[in-house]
């Protein structure tokens, strides 16, 4: 089997998972007690109104027809109306998604930019002070609730030290054309340097709080794989040929050590997406997660489906990208896959 065939198979698996997910969500919404039409209209609506809306929503059709309809909607991006905002769910998602992506991307950046070098340094000073410190940080970061870190950051750096704003994405005195929805990009494109810096100020605390959990894991896994790779003959050989030691460490050793790290970046993305729900609530970050939480609280089912499926798609795509990257970074994985079949 060629590597691309393997990738296609993985992608198919992902799509099947998404299909399963849609069935679960559909099933949960239709089989469980509680009429969606009743929920949509609220307790005050009359039986007649509910019956009419039920017919309108197709709730009286056979289940499989309902599912086909529901899937048609999902596939064409027609996710129905949000009960809360009275707008198309797809429109809402398009509006809120960039804020979440911006937050997660910056958090991921922090995770990688701090986590990997610290892991490398810890590996080079095995059992030294830095090493012990990273172990403690890692332990701390997987044990502390994400939202609690956010609250502590707000308390210390927001309320007490007043270094950073506590909520939101941009101070109200700035107005920016939301071309892409990514404020870092938009402000820069418009040449508003002040506003751009202000966006960073708003981003820093939530992104850092979000990145904490993953940072510890990345540090530890980078450390342990660096230690494994450092002992390999080829590293000794590269040093023996008198190559610059930074080159041996950060190019030749790290690329090998990067494979396990890359494998967990997929899992990490999951935990980032999950924790984003908490962090967005803490920092009132107007993103997809906050929208999703609001939808859950208001029984806004179309919106919940939209958010869930969006995240499912994001998750499957990220894992696919990581599969592609793995094959590129480590030819051994490609060969293993190709030889295994």
């Amino acid at each position, binding site marked *: 089997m060629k590597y691309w065939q393997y990738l296609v198979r993985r992608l198919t698996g992902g799509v099947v998972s998404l299909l399963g997910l849609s069935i679960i969500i559909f099933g949960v919404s239709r089989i469980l007690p509680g009429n969606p039409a009743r929920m949509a209209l609220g307790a005050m609506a009359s039986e007649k109104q509910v019956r009419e809306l039920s017919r309108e929503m197709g709730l009286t059709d056979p289940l499989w027809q309902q599912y086909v309809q529901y899937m048609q909607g999902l596939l064409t991006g027609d996710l129905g109306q949000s009960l809360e905002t009275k707008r198309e769910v797809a429109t809402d998602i398009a509006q809120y998604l960039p804020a979440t992506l911006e937050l997660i991307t910056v958090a991921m950046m922090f995770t990688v930019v701090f986590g990997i070098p610290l892991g490398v340094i810890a590996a080079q000073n095995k059992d030294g002070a830095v090493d012990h410190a990273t172990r403690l940080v890692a332990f701390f970061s997987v044990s502390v609730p994400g939202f609690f870190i956010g609250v502590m950051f707000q308390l210390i750096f927001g309320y007490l030290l007043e270094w950073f704003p506590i909520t939101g994405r941009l101070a109200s005195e700035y107005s920016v054309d939301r071309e892409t929805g990514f404020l870092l990009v938009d402000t820069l494109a418009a040449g508003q340097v002040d506003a751009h810096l202000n966006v960073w100020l708003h981003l820093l605390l939530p992104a850092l709080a979000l990145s904490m959990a993953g940072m510890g894991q990345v540090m530890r896994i980078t450390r342990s794989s660096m230690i494994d790779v450092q002992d390999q003959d080829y590293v000794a050989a590269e040093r023996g040929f*008198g*190559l610059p030691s930074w*080159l041996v460490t950060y190019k030749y050793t790290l690329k090998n050590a990067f494979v396990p790290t890359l494998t967990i970046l997929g899992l990490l993305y999951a935990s980032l997406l999950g924790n984003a729900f908490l962090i967005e609530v803490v920092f009132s970050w107007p993103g997809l997660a906050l929208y999703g939480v609001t939808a859950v609280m208001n029984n806004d089912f179309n919106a919940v489906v939209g958010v869930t499926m969006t995240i499912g798609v994001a998750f499957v795509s990220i894992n696919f990208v990581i599969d592609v990257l793995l094959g590129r970074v480590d030819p051994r994985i490609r060969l293993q896959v190709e030889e295994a079949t």
Partner: protein
Amino acid sequence: MTLAEPIGDDPILSVRDLHVGFDSFDGFADVVDGVDLSVGRGEVVTVAGETGCGKSVTMKAILRLLSEPPAQIEGEITFDGTELRSLPKREFDRLKGRRMSLIFQDPMSSLNPTFTVGEQLADTAQFGGRSDTGVLEYVRRRYLGGERAEARERAVEMLREVQMPDPESVMESYPTQLSGGMRQRVLIAQALLNDPDLLIADEIGTALDVTIHDQIMTLLEDLIADHDLSVLMITHNLGVARQVSDRIYVMYGGRIVETAPTAALFDAPKHPYTQGLVASIPRLTGDPMAEGIDGSVPEYLDPPSGCRFHPRCPYAHEACREHRPETIPVGTDAGVECVLYDDRHDAPYDAPTLETTRAQMGTIADQSQTTASELGGD
């Protein structure tokens, strides 16, 4: 002229009274115990001995590949007139990649699996021995201008020289896609890229099967001649040593026990250990030696007193247990560390010949086992 420098006053590498010890959990282990050796210009020298005799540690100490601590290194190592032990790291690195080069033991594990052969060779060609290259300089010379293309050309040239079939496509291959023999050729090419004066080779080719191994050794002989290399080779395979080297050091228990020009060593080995080795070479193949000598390499935490070989030596007597023997010169270019050749000690035996040892070997098995346990060798 001492025995360490039998090749004239100006050896390219000389090691004097080298001690390497390791502080371990169970105590101090002196794995290299006062080694003297030298490599003359244009000379091919082999250090031979069983696994665990300290030959690899000697090599690593020369190349500064041991981290201190846990290793403790003492002694003098001179390369082309420069004392290496006191040399600052930066200058040592410059020597290491450009004037000294090395080939590691296992071709399977000595190439980086995640980079193409071309990338590794070109980096070595451009930056080997230039450990002071900064990130910016690296990026500039790696990606801008024609320097990279030149380096790759040099790498292809070198692959051709090591008789690599289809070198251009090998440049684009990952090590996992190459056979063991091809990888060994890549490693040799990599070692010779920067035109070193001294090549240090650890167990070259021994991980390969016999036919490929022979090809590689023949290739190496040609390359040594073409590039006018001085070579310090390390092997446990006396057949390999015999094929390529001018002179051989035999190492046992962290000490050099005998040195002689290759022909002389094989014709008339002097040290009982060397005799045992030579006697146990299978006639046709070059299989690992030392199966004929009973017992095993000594523990370094608590080595045998006196001559470290005495628990396994068929000719051992009182003096061997009490003092470390002195090195007795034999002619101008050979020497042996054994009391049997020391006129001041009256050995109870005559110096044995290869034939006597060969005859002995049938009978020493049980005898030496008892001596080993009696003398607390373990």
